[in-house]
């Protein structure tokens, strides 16, 4: 076993909001051709007048993507298939983003902004961590749809047939990854930012398992005291609100929240882990986005094994005129794995590249299960608990995992970036 995996004691996942890979990290291809990023000569979308609009490095931190781009199932279908009617012959072409954004406001100029991306110097934290550690060319949203059902894949390995934001009550059979970890006698927690921001997993987890939650202040304390659980899921601040020590500015980067505040939040999570030396050497931090937010990406989402037969979304549920078997991933999102045991400047090839791999949010519980199982034997559980612990959705069973990225060698501290606010 590589030393990095041998030393691994904690996995932390920070899930941000609604930005595509090309939009946030696509410009890195200018300096590293292994990264499957943006090319203005090739990556264009037609607008409603027929003009071809290229990608451009003109993304702004705030005030540009207002109104919020469409990221519900029918809108994402248009973005991926360019408006072709559903049917077995249609081909994904990623040509519908500008047309989709036009529908929000009927404004041709505004619709072009969906093609804008950030140059790396505007995102020094995310881009810096991506180049220092590992960046995934092929991490996709789990479904071509919005936040809550995508986050469900990170918590449960499935969304139980949900493609939208509707309330659903868990009826089994798969437990959340937190409950499975606790069944194994290990520790897990969801850290939401604070009460006013709360969590996005309310109905089934917050309601019934309040003890698996903590706040971000608790996360910081737990990192400092070395009491971080073996698996932690961190949520950013989802809204602007007044806090005890002043204004709390949203840090999730969901349009139209200020992207730089998200950079600071990512840095705070990263620093909290680094500043405890033992924790730094024993933690893998995955920074990932839940879905693309309706923003352009050029990579066609690949097919995937269908989820359990019981989890098919009907045509009424998709609102797109056809059912969905969860056999196709959503649009590509930024994903970066931070650990001193990751080789510097690792680029994990995407599904259409040599030795390509594809990941989605089901990879998260799949990886945590592999991590727990590396030194835990479930035969000590009762038959009922063993069945619940080992139960994984079809999608989770098929998902790739990322522990193999931890190597035998550790990056020295003096080469690790420290992002310092000027």
């Amino acid at each position, binding site marked *: 076993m590589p030393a990095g995996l041998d030393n691994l004691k904690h996995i932390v996942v920070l899930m941000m*909001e609604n930005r595509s890979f090309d939009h946030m990290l696509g410009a890195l291809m200018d300096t590293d051709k292994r990264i499957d990023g943006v090319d203005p000569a090739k990556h264009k979308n037609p607008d409603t007048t027929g003009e071809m609009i290229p990608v451009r490095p003109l993304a702004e*931190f*705030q005030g540009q993507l207002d109104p*919020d781009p469409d990221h519900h199932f029918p809108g994402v279908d248009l973005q991926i298939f360019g408006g072709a009617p559903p049917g077995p012959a249609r081909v994904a072409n990623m040509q519908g983003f500008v047309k989709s954004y036009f529908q929000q406001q009927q404004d041709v100029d505004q619709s072009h902004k969906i093609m804008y991306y950030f140059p790396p110097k505007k995102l*020094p*934290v995310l881009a*810096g961590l991506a180049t220092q550690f590992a960046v995934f060319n092929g991490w996709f949203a789990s479904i071509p749809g*919005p*936040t*809550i059902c995508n986050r469900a894949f990170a918590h449960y390995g499935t969304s139980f047939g949900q493609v939208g*934001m509707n*309330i659903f009550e868990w009826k089994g059979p798969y437990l959340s990854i937190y*409950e499975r970890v*606790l*069944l*194994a*006698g290990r520790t897990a927690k969801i850290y939401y930012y604070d009460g006013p921001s*709360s969590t*996005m997993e*309310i*109905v089934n987890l*917050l*309601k*019934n*398992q*309040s*003890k698996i939650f903590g706040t971000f202040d608790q996360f910081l304390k737990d990192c400092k005291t070395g009491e971080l659980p073996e698996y932690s899921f961190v949520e950013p601040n*989802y*809204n*602007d*609100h007044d806090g005890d020590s002043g*204004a709390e*500015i949203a840090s999730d980067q*969901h*349009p139209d*929240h*200020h992207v*730089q*505040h998200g*950079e*600071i939040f990512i*840095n705070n999570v990263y620093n909290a882990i*680094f500043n405890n*030396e033992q924790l730094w050497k024993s933690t893998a931090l995955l920074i990932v986005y839940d879905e693309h937010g309706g923003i352009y990406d050029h990579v066609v989402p690949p097919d995937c094994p269908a989820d359990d037969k019981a989890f098919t979304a009907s045509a009424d549920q998709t609102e797109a005129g056809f059912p969905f078997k969860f056999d196709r991933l959503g649009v590509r999102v930024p994903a970066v794995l931070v650990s001193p045991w990751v080789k510097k400047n690792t680029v994990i090839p995407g599904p259409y590249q040599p030795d390509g791999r594809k990941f989605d949010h089901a990879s998260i519980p799949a990886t945590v299960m592999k991590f727990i199982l590396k*030194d*835990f*034997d*479930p035969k*000590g*559980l009762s038959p009922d*608990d063993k069945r619940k612990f080992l139960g994984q959705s079809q999608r989770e069973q098929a998902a790739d995992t990322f522990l193999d990225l931890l190597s035998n060698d550790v990056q020295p*501290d*003096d*080469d*690790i*970036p*420290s992002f*310092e*606010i*000027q």
Partner: protein
Amino acid sequence: MAKARKRRAVPIPSPPDDAFDKDRRAGALLQAQALHLRHGLARYVQKVARHLHKVGELLAVDLSTTKTEGQVSEYARQVTAILHMKTGKHPRKYKEAAR
């Protein structure tokens, strides 16, 4: 004293405070979150209502009829369960599993 751990400094700009706007119109995600929160609260009210019904039953017990140790212990069991009830489901008992 532990040696200070030095990293490679990368300057980043300070984000503006004027990004704050709690009067910004809440988007679809936050509106959905509010609906989910209300649903969770409605379920909690149902749980509290069942709980209060039981509390009422136990308050109505005439303790002059509770004479034996067995009767007192049964009363104690039921009241203790109420007083120790936490929010949400009773926590699943997670045994310390063998590694």
